């Protein structure tokens, strides 16, 4: 039932319960406001939105007045304007009038509204109050004297970030906004308060004073750090990325972006960028021109094909590469006769690859996650892996959904999951089998994988999860990084699918990188070509490539010491290889050792391209700046290599021709059915004894751009390389926090400090990847020996 109201002489049919300001906003009628924000609860404390409502003696706040039938609103009557002007005057009593030194000048809501509603002169002649600035960490600068107490930042913490870090202290003249005890904000979404703050009280710290809003050129972009594909506005000036702000997209990131998306651009200007092609000659690095470098690459590759064979080349590409790059990379290698192509650099088990769909895609859209009734996350620290998907999960929880976490670590979340099933990492498959057995028994469908199910004992925790799954209408099961990278990933995926079948639910993968879906679709996997067609002879996956110690490797935007699972194996393979070609944006000390040729490629915001996000949405973007120095967009480098190798079909002029080719392939090819059903093992693999490593990528170690962003590295969320263990385990091993220990695995060993955390379970120790210090361990999920030194 709709009701009719009138605003400024126009009538509107609206849903009851809406606020006047929502109706006005939808109709494009401007009502000034400070505290109201469509994504936050209504606080109605700034009073700027006062409007004249007929039959009301006093003006009413439009943001907090629900519409009523026959309501007549005037937003520009004398009463309304007088009220708004009076509020403006009150706000400016304590606000400093020094816009020229304020970083918000030129993009300030208060400045804009003061222009319309302020007076040219102040009647106030007494002292203004001043407030001490707060230190909120390396991302957000404060000038609290400018705060107008709209409490948007406070409400953001409570309602969106899920962690009340900002609050308002004191009353009246003494009101102050800040953290109660001085501390850096720890939320992974914290910097959104920069956009929310209508004045210059909270501003972007790395960007501070570096440019004015009017100097910036705005480009659209897509985040390259996670599978969400958040929409960005990249602000550039004189061919440099100055800052990144969110671009609103209700279906993906709403009005938010994570701090990782916002501040990773600081890594683009890192001195470790490679800006010209380089060759290693007699152990010395030499800068050469592109012509020489490309010629050398071609000759070296032809040499390998002649002396060995093309399938002795290993091609490893980052899942953050664009569709164009991934497509040309596999086309280049396949054109030479090599199918050893993989993007699944963080994974260790590929048993399930034949049964995978053409490309992994969430069964529901990102926006629909918040409508779910039950979400089960297996092996996922979603809050750090995909912050904006986690935000949707939290919204679902807020809407009353049950959220169950099955994890090897009791990750800290910004809400309390309904149930957390904590098991040692190596016992995750056992836990899933237990839950599946409960489900199968309740559904009396125990034939499939009978032996496997019989081999585990059901615990009450398993039954609790199974009961929740059965009572929900269509549960959503999400597999996080911990499940996908697990040495039993295939079995876990199969069990998750079985759980979904038995409970009428759906399974989704929260894939690593920005473009895993694109990588699968273009065939950047060893067993399938573009659009999911099976290749004649399945080739080596990334782990087999390392183990086979091939004579030549081509790495595209991959730093194996940081980015790959089983990093020591990778480093060993690379150091014995006769030829390692790195197409990369950054040069690392390890790369100087193992690489022979470095071709500099464009980084984030420097190349046009396409990402396919986790819900299968294609998002294309243009370059915002030209690549640094001599670097060139990756797809162009691959195209020229294709030409120089005289391969067919490399005559692209613009990058869209590549995506067009892929699209037309996708319409003509029907992907074949997965080759043969998955066969469950008859029993679970034997669980090793002793201390076991759990490997994960901390939020700000996830890719090379992020790792080079200094502000992110200084936040409290950034981690240091340590070995994290439970207090019980530390006690058993006789270790205290901070002790230096030797962590060894087979012949490899690294020295790390001990960190004790009650979030660890049993004999699992957390040793993060993404650090050179931990790269010396060969098994990301193997047993380790820990000795005091």
């Amino acid at each position, binding site marked *: 039932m709709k009701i009719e109201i009138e605003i400024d002489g126009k009538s509107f049919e609206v849903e009851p319960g809406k606020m006047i300001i929502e109706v006005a906003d939808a109709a494009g009628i401007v009502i000034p406001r400070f505290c109201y924000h469509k994504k936050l609860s209504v606080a109605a404390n700034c009073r700027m939105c006062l409007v004249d409502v007929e039959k009301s003696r006093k003006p009413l706040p439009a943001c907090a007045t629900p519409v009523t039938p026959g309501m007549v609103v005037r937003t520009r009557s004398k009463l309304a304007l007088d009220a708004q002007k009076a509020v403006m005057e009150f706000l400016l009593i304590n606000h400093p009038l020094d*816009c*020229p*030194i304020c970083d918000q000048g030129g993009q300030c809501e208060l400045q804009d509204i003061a222009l319309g509603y302020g007076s040219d002169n102040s009647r106030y002649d007494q002292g203004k109050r001043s407030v001490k600035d707060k230190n909120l960490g390396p991302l957000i600068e404060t000038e609290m004297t400018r705060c107008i107490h709209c409490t948007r930042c406070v409400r953001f913490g409570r309602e969106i970030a899920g962690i009340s870090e900002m609050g308002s202290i004191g009353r009246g003249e003494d009101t102050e906004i800040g953290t109660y005890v001085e501390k850096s904000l720890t939320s992974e979404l914290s910097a959104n308060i920069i956009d929310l703050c209508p004045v210059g009280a909270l501003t972007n710290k790395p960007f*501070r004073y570096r*440019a*004015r809003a009017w*100097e910036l050129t705005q480009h659209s972009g897509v985040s390259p750090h996670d599978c969400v594909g958040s929409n960005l506005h990249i602000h550039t000036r004189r061919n440099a990325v100055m800052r990144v702000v969110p671009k609103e997209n209700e279906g993906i990131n709403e009005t938010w972006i994570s701090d990782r998306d916002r501040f990773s651009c600081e890594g683009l200007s890192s001195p470790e960028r490679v800006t010209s092609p380089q060759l290693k000659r007699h152990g010395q690095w030499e800068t050469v021109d592109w012509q020489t470098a490309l010629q050398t690459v071609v000759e070296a590759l032809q040499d390998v094909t002649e002396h060995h064979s093309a399938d002795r080349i290993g091609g490893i590409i980052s899942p953050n590469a664009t569709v164009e790059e991934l497509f040309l990379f596999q086309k280049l290698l396949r054109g030479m006769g090599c199918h050893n192509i993989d993007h699944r650099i963080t994974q260790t088990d590929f048993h399930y690859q034949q049964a995978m769909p053409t490309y992994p895609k969430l069964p529901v859209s990102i926006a629909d996650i918040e409508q779910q009734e039950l979400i089960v996350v297996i092996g996922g620290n979603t809050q750090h892996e995909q912050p904006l998907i986690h935000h949707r999960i939290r919204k679902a929880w807020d809407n009353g959904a049950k959220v169950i976490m099955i994890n090897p670590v009791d990750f800290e979340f910004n809400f309390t999951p309904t149930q957390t099933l904590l098991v040692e990492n190596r016992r995750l498959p056992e836990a899933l089998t237990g839950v599946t057995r409960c489900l199968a028994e309740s559904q009396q469908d125990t034939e499939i994988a009978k032996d496997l199910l019989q081999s585990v004992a059901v615990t009450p925790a398993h039954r609790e999860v199974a009961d929740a799954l059965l009572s929900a209408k269509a549960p959503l099961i999400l597999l996080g990084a911990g499940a996908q990278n697990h040495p039993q990933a295939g079995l876990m995926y199969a069990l998750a699918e079985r759980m979904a079948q038995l409970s009428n639910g759906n399974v989704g993968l929260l894939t690593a990188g920005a473009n895993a879906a694109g990588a699968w679709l273009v065939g950047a996997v060893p067993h399938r070509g573009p659009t999911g067609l099976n290749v004649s002879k399945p080739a080596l996956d990334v782990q087999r490539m390392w183990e086979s110690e091939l004579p030549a490797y081509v790495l595209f935007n991959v730093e194996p010491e940081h980015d790959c699972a089983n990093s020591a194996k990778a480093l060993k393979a690379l150091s014995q290889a006769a030829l390692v070609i790195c197409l990369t944006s950054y040069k690392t000390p390890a790369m100087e050792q193992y690489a022979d040729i470095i071709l500099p490629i464009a980084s984030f915001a420097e190349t046009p391209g396409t990402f396919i996000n986790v819900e299968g949405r294609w998002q294309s973007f243009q370059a915002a700046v030209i690549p640094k120095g001599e670097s060139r967009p990756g797809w162009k480098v691959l195209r020229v290599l294709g030409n120089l190798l005289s391969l067919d079909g490399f005559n692209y002029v613009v990058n869209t021709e590549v995506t067009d080719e892929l699209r037309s392939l996708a319409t003509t090819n029907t992907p074949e059915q997965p080759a043969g059903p998955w066969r469950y093992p008859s029993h679970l693999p034997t669980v090793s004894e002793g201390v076991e490593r759990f490997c994960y990528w901390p939020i700000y170690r996830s890719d090379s751009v992020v790792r080079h962003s200094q502000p992110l590295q200084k936040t409290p969320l950034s981690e240091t390389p340590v070995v994290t263990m439970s207090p019980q385990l530390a006690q058993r091993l006789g270790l205290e926090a901070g002790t230096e220990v030797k962590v060894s695995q087979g012949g490899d060993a690294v020295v790390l400090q001990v960190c004790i955390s009650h979030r660890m379970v049993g004999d699992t120790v957390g040793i993060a990847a993404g650090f050179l210090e931990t790269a010396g361990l060969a098994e990301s999920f193997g047993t380790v020996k820990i000795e005091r030194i």
Partner: protein
Amino acid sequence: MSQFLEKIKSFTLWELLVGMKLTGRYLFSKKVTIQFPEESTPTSPRFRGLHALRRYPNGEERCIACKLCEAVCPALAITIEAAPRADNSRRTTVYEIDLFKCIYCGFCEESCPVDSIVETTLKNYHFTQRGQNIMNKQELLAIGDEFEQDIARDKADDAAFR
């Protein structure tokens, strides 16, 4: 008769004398030519000549890197880079004016909220080398330092009309 008169005029060089009369009048009247460089024309306090960046009496530079002058300059002659200084105040790291682009409109001075960038009454300057036309922050501050008294006086003189 008139022919006879013409003859006399031409024999006595009458026309020349008439011309010399004018010459003679100017020879003895007050001169308008000035002896540059020893002398120069008077300039109004509003004269828009070479730019300068000013300081406060305590030596602190006035400019706060608000970039209004850069934005208002119709000739795009001003280039500013800004960053927080060590004391976290807002300061320029680069402040350049290209005097070949500048059209001496004075908008920069008009827009400056702290009277930092000004156009002095200096009008006699030249460049001998390519690149000298771009005045950097140090040069502009140096001009300001040298002529601060003149600038302040000109500003005070003009204040009544603003």
